């Protein structure tokens, strides 16, 4: 989409998407998962009925793709501590229990399909690696809830 008028359309669609939808999804991880879920795996095209009605199929697709890339970049730039926090919040907001969530995410690795097309392979590797470690940290916390919480008394050691 190199035509300036069309580009304007995409920018308007992006602003609309940010204001109406993404403003209610504050965490980049949640945004990444949500936006990747709007992508058709067979075609790689993004679909959003409301946005396509207000603008055009093409503009809505590009707006969703742009926001998907932004969420990905934000998440790549996040510290591990922040990522653990985001993952915990995402798990808490899901219907599953934390143990079910961690089990499913470790086994199925659903986050792998959330990477936007054309993302740099190193950035993708870094994010996938950080998510793997964040899941391991959450799992440790689940098994030993005292780990990672500030305490005046000495913690029991996990390593024997």
């Amino acid at each position: 989409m190199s035509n300036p008028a069309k580009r304007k359309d995409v920018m308007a669609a992006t602003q609309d998407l940010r204001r109406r939808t993404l403003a209610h999804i504050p965490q980049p991880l949640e945004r990444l998962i949500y936006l990747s879920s709007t992508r058709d795996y067979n075609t790689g095209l993004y679909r959003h009925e409301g946005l396509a009605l207000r603008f055009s199929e093409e503009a809505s697709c590009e707006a969703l793709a742009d926001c998907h890339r932004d969420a990905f970049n934000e998440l790549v730039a996040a510290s591990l501590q922040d990522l653990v926090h985001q993952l915990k919040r995402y798990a808490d907001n899901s219907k599953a229990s934390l143990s079910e969530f961690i089990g499913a995410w470790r086994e199925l690795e659903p986050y792998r399909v959330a990477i936007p097309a054309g993302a740099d392979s190193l950035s993708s590797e870094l994010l996938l690696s950080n998510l793997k470690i964040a899941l391991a940290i959450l799992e440790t916390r689940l098994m030993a809830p005292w780990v990672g919480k500030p305490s005046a008394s000495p913690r029991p050691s996990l390593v024997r």
Partner: protein
Amino acid sequence: MTALIIYLLIGAGLFLFLLVMARRKNTPVEGCGEEFVQARHALRALQLGLLPANLVERIFDRGDFEYVTAESSREICKLFLAERKRISLIWVGRVRGEIRNLMHFHLGYSRFQSKLSLRTELRLALDFVLLLFACRTLQLWLYLRGPYSAPAMVGIAAGAAARVCRISEQSLAFLNPVASDSFQNDSTTGGAAV
């Protein structure tokens, strides 16, 4: 009859020789599009994918390590260090690969066509050699001592690679100014200028 066969064999031999010469990759040819595109890809990969300061900082950020050490078990620390070592080795390996691509382009094509001064040429040659050496040393260091063992060397390698990219950018602009202008026009729609 024998003479005819000999002439045909000589003809076939000459034809094959010409074919081989035409297919030689390192022959400097005016307007060699494929090499130009490859060099541009290498430059883009370095500038947009490998050398952005926030990505390099994130990979080698000690804050993550301190967080994991303070918050998790020894097993997770080991997992974290192994993962960061893997990522840092991918990073340095890819930087080295793209720098080699750029060097190949400069050796084979750019110096015949671009208008870099002799001083810049020499500086670039020295930068390439030092950078490849630094990358190899860094690779070895990261492999043996882990991702947080040589922060200064990471900074030096990233800085030198950025300098080489800047000079290569000039060189690519001289190669094909019309194409370069069109790329810059494209970049106004969201991409980065190369």
